[in-house]
């Protein structure tokens, strides 16, 4: 088989294993929707001032949870499942076969991307039906998709990169959550950042990719301005992750 055909068949096997693993399917799919319902129920009746406009908090959360869903599907999911595969010796075995490494990596990223698209679709549909959130259309939709693709690819690359810092499968969930959860809070995913937020938080949000990714996603829903700099910053983080992964990725368990 050609590398492209191998990649496609590899995506199908990754997909089968993903859906049959109850915990990965549950956490990836249930969490964003659950958070959407919880946060909207708790805080969704207010208004958020955003870029000179005032938006419904429920709409804000639809966009934020869509961004959260993509990060979970790409960063968390890849980091945890690849570390498991490395620890279990699956990666070493794969490395002993003629499967090109590029087919393995591409299959994982494309699969994460497909899961992310599905998750965003579910979140947006749910938000539109239940919370009457706006759905992006036309040129806004295209920009939204561009941000989604760049974000999914970048967070996938970062997911591969972080595996180098994870000593074993037991530590993977802890390290992945420790690296992403504070950032989700500091980037306004769960609680909107305002102009009166402490400046150190705003600076952290400016440096790391989560805030920029969420900005790009939100513009589709909230009619806020879309900045290509957000896309570029997320892409830069993705390239950095790719460079780290290329340099430090290990096929064998770290013992």
């Amino acid at each position, binding site marked *: 088989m050609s590398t492209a055909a*191998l990649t496609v*068949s590899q995506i199908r*096997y990754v997909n089968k294993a993903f859906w049959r693993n109850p915990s990965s399917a549950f956490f990836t799919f249930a969490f964003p929707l659950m958070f959407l319902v919880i946060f909207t129920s708790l805080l969704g009746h207010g208004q958020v001032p955003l870029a000179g406009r005032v938006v419904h908090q429920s709409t804000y959360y639809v966009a934020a949870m869509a961004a959260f869903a993509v990060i979970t599907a790409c960063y968390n999911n890849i980091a945890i499942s690849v570390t498991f595969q490395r620890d279990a010796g699956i990666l*070493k*075995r794969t490395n*002993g076969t*003629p499967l090109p490494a590029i087919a393995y990596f591409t299959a994982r990223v494309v699969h994460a991307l497909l899961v992310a698209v599905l998750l965003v679709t579910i979140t947006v549909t749910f938000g539109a039906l239940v919370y009457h959130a706006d759905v992006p259309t036309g040129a806004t939709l295209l920009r939204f998709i561009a941000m989604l693709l760049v974000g999914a690819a970048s967070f996938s690359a970062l997911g591969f990169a972080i595996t180098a810092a994870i000593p074993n499968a037991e530590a993977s969930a802890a390290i992945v959550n420790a690296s992403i959860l504070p950032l989700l809070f500091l980037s306004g995913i769960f609680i909107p950042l305002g102009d009166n937020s402490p400046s150190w938080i705003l600076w952290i949000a400016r440096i790391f990719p989560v805030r920029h990714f969420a900005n790009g996603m939100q513009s589709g829903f909230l009619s806020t301005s879309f900045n290509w700099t957000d896309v570029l910053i997320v892409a830069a983080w993705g390239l950095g992750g790719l460079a780290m992964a290329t340099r430090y990725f290990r096929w064998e368990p770290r013992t």
Partner: protein
Amino acid sequence: MTGIAKGEGPAEEEAAILVRGLRKSYGDVAAVDGLDLEIRRGEIFALLGPNGAGKTTTVEILEGFRSRDAGSVTVLGCDPGSQRRRIKSRIGIVLQSTGVDPYLTVAETVAMYASYYPHPRSVDEVIELVGLASKHGSRVLKLSGGQQRRLDVAIALAGDPELLFLDEPTTGFDPSARHEAWEVVRNLATLGKTVVLTTHYMDEAQNLADRVAVVAAGRIVAEGSPSSLGGRDTASARIRYQVPPGLRPPVEFADAPDPAGFVELVPADFTATLHALTGWALAHGATLDTLQILRPSLEDVYLTLTGGPEGGPR
């Protein structure tokens, strides 16, 4: 023979694996220390040795997983260091400990790995060969340890390799599973495959291997067929018996008995001594119920060569 390139001896042509002066150190510790090896096409070759002797390091260098510090290595005519990609599609590997995705079925797993190779074998045929036909649609999660190991072998066979590496393939097997696994390996040999296995089970080497090499401290200390290794075939046999109660054997049969009352002789002329001993017993109306004729077992030879368990060669 004709058609052999100049400068390449017949060995070069026939050898599946040729290793000269292989060295590999981890820090200050030499895991492999000047190892030479020649494995012919179509043979089952066993590497025996204690843990830490350098077996797995050697095999992982041959498989292309590890780099080497020095020495020349040829696997199927290629260098596994610089030409690894050319070898990958022609070898099958069963690693010492390795996993597969627990959520795929047996058939899906074999089919997935088969798809990586240019000329794979039929998935059903491979599953049948390792005796997992009844588990065809079961998820890997549900397999027993022995069944997972057989799946490892099935995956290694999926690409129809010319050369198969088995690193301790039957560790953790119960005796019947082990015999079944041996049958699988023998079948491979009849198909003309070369099999390199590492083991620390003497019976495995004895039953399976055409040739055996003993590795100790990173080098080969003996090499040969299981029956001739370490001079087993030419070593003197020993006679061991218990002195019948109330009798005093003649001086030539009466070495000092051990605490259990056994006497052990290493006669120069085995046949004559045995004849004389049984003659003496008959003449005195005694039976030699516990009489044993002992030849050094593969394990004896192995322990002597690897310096255990009594510390140092005897």
